[in-house]
């Protein structure tokens, strides 16, 4: 076996979720939303007509300047600033020892999801003035974050987070192939796996398109599941089927990423151009918003 740096190991699903910033982001979002809507009476409050909402029972708590509403604004702002730590980790040499880039990214994703949620409750769904521009910029940044993550995971990286070269990528693919061939010890099964790979991995001469990449990625899971189902019908033992599924999933992902690699990298670079300016925009307006609030006397923790 060659000393090829391993790409990100394929962790178990549960292990993956435990360290997933997106998963924790969604969990936190669900909990916060349930607490606000059900625990604090937000469901009735946000459903009340704006003209008289100020006199609803929950207004004192949930209004933007109230204890909960303002706290959401504060925490949300902090969470929206936190992603810059990921940038700092990436770019500042002094922070290179401060944890892995992956963990910083997961934190980045968590904050990028929960922050907008908290800010949304801070607005009490009332969008006026230029601060509304900041809000919608924030929403756009958050949604673009999902796009960025999609592109990011399709650029194979080493366990340390460094991008793999094409040669390293090919070597890893061969390793996986050999690993599977040794495990199976069956030419027939191996031929079936290769035949399946040929259906989900485009040939080098095939036309590259974003739509093809998206649909292929979406359909791959279903096709793999169907393939494993066929193996089960042929009487392939479960342990062997699991090995085939695990290795094939990683190898096909590598090969599909390799096929779209250039385009993915281009898009990811372009994404940076789009993602970052919106963040600056929202931070500038948010800063103005905070400054004006403080100027008017709406200082934190002084609720009347």
């Amino acid at each position, binding site marked *: 076996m060659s000393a090829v740096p391993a790409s990100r190991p394929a962790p178990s699903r549960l292990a993956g979720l435990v360290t997933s910033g997106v998963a924790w982001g969604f969990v936190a979002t669900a909990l916060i939303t349930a607490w606000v809507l059900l625990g604090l009476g937000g469901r009735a409050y946000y459903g009340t007509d704006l003209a008289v909402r100020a006199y609803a029972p929950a207004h004192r708590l949930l209004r933007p300047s109230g204890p909960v509403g303002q706290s959401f604004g504060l925490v949300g702002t902090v969470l929206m600033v936190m992603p810059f730590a990921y940038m700092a980790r990436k770019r500042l040499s002094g922070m290179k020892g401060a944890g892995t880039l992956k963990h910083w990214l997961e934190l980045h994703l968590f904050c990028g999801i929960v922050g907008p949620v908290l800010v949304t409750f801070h607005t009490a769904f009332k969008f006026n003035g230029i601060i509304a521009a900041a809000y919608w910029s924030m929403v756009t940044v958050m949604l673009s974050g999902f796009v960025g993550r999609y592109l990011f995971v399709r650029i194979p990286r080493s366990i340390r987070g460094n991008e793999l070269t094409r040669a390293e990528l090919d070597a890893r693919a061969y390793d996986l192939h050999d690993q599977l061939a040794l495990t199976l010890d069956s030419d027939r099964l191996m031929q079936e796996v290769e035949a399946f790979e040929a259906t989900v991995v485009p040939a080098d001469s095939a036309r590259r398109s974003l739509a093809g990449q998206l649909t292929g990625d979406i359909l791959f899971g279903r096709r793999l599941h169907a393939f494993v189902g066929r193996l089960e019908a042929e009487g392939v033992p479960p342990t062997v089927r699991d090995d085939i599924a695990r290795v094939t999933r990683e190898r096909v992902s590598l090969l599909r990423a390799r096929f779209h690699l250039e385009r993915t990298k281009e898009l990811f670079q372009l994404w940076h151009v789009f993602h970052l*300016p919106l963040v600056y925009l929202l931070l500038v307006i948010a800063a103005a918003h905070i400054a004006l609030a403080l100027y*008017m006397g709406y200082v934190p923790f002084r609720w*009347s």
Partner: protein
Amino acid sequence: MRRVQQILIAVLTVWAIAAGAGTARAQLGSLLSPGPLARPHASLEGVANCAKCHEQGRRVTAQKCLACHQPIAQRIARKVGVHKDAGGECVLCHAEHAGVNGELRPFDQKAFDHAAVTGFALTGKHALGAQQCAACHKGRSFVDASPACAACHTDVHKPSLGSNCATCHSTQAAFTAASTAFDHNTAAFRLIGAHTKVACASCHIGGVFKGVKFASCVNCHKEPHQPSLGSNCTTCHTTDSWRTTNVNHQRTSFPLVGAHTKVACATCHKQSATKVTLKSDTCASCHADVHAGQFKQDCKACHNETAWKGGRFDHATTAFALRGKHAPLTCDACHRPAAPTRVAARTAAVPTRVGASAAPVVDFRGLKTSCVSCHADVHQAELGTNCETCHSDADFALRAYTHKTGGPFFAAQHATLTCEQCHTSLAPARPARTGTAPLAVRFAAAERGCVSCHQDIHLGQFTARCETCHSVETAKFAVTIDHARQTSFALTGKHGAVACRECHKVETGRFPAATGTAVRLKGVGATCVSCHKDVHLGQLVANCESCHTSDTFHLATYAHKSKTVLALMTGAHARASCVDCHKATTGRFPAGTGTAIRFTTGTACVSCHVDQHRGGLGPNCGNCHRP
């Protein structure tokens, strides 16, 4: 790539400002504002006005609010009204920047305790408006409303009755029902009777409550009587009702007597307030002239005031006194409703009351005195128009009548006949009113021949008059006839004792007048065989009278005329009787098969005698024997 990023940042910045500005009406104040101000504060929109409410570092203070809302500040200071307990910042209760329709003064109208908060309890009719603040609070400010009635209600009495409306009005009743609060007995004019039910405005016209004159009824009530009956209305009327029965009609020009005393006032005084003066001297003022002027409204001639019907009228004053059967008749037995055209001319000349009955007018004047005016002429003018010749008004039936002509005819058997036996009819023989079917009776034009009453039982066998044979003098018109003289067949010998019916049989067949059953009197025939049977069954062609007579059919003697027979009538033959040779024989005869004495016998001996020799000696018996 860096260049692209810079361009994108610039574009996004412009977009953000444009979007925010577009949302907030492209004003800096709007860009910074958390939302539009409510409509009452619309004039404070704009960045230049922020400081009018907001204070650096102090948010929105009550001082800023009350600087404008002075009336509220005063009420807070006086601790009255809704804000009597207000102490904190206004924004604790009044929220802004919730849009142009944002509610600035939230409160639960249903739960609002108007009495406790404002000191003005919404009772009675006001309670109905408790849910509708705007009914009283017309302006935007609630504090503009005053507890004084005139603050909301128009003082229609201004300025006559002062400002204390509660003297007459209460919140428990409508303004128009002021009497529920005002005790009119405290006024100079106490309300009694029907006056208690009259609306105030009926007397207090135009909202004038003071100085209303009431000394006389006519101050309020119009004088309906023309000419006026004076101002002392209470002579007839009371305060309970205008329709009073308190009028002493004896004091009027028409004292009420008889049936008039029982009539309700309104029956004659149909129009209210006696607007029309009744003409008491004519009945037609009230009563419709059902006679259409036939009596020129001289009602008293027949009617009196006791009752319309049953009035006595002396019919003897007319040209037709009612006697006998006519006396008990009711008027309408003869005086019936006339044809419209018949009275049209008269009704046109005589005015009748409006509303008179449309019933047909009874014709009293047009009836004539002749019997046929009422009675039908059952004789169809056959006997003329002078009914009294036979009938009287005591009874229509004829007690006795003597025919003035045809004396002998009405004697003997005709003497006991009743009229109806000859003058018969198919309809009831009773006098009938005009319009009923006439009776089929013939008197003057009746047939005078016997057959007009009697039936020709001979069915035309005789053309001579009945009197030729029959007479009224004979019982049952029996006939005695001289057969020898009156017919061609004299009844001689035994014919004289024979009953007629022996020869004149009852036959059914054709007769001169008709086919039927009758005694055959003519055409019986004079020959013997017309009545008698030919017992010889046609053996003898000679007349019966050749041997027989009408005295007896038996032959006393007979002499054979034939020489052959005479030659045989010798010896014992001369002593022999007829039947020794002519025996009764059954067999064929000229007139048919039957039993008869056979006259034609043979001359041979064996025709009568038995051949003892049984033909052994031949047929000629004379060779040995002699008669």
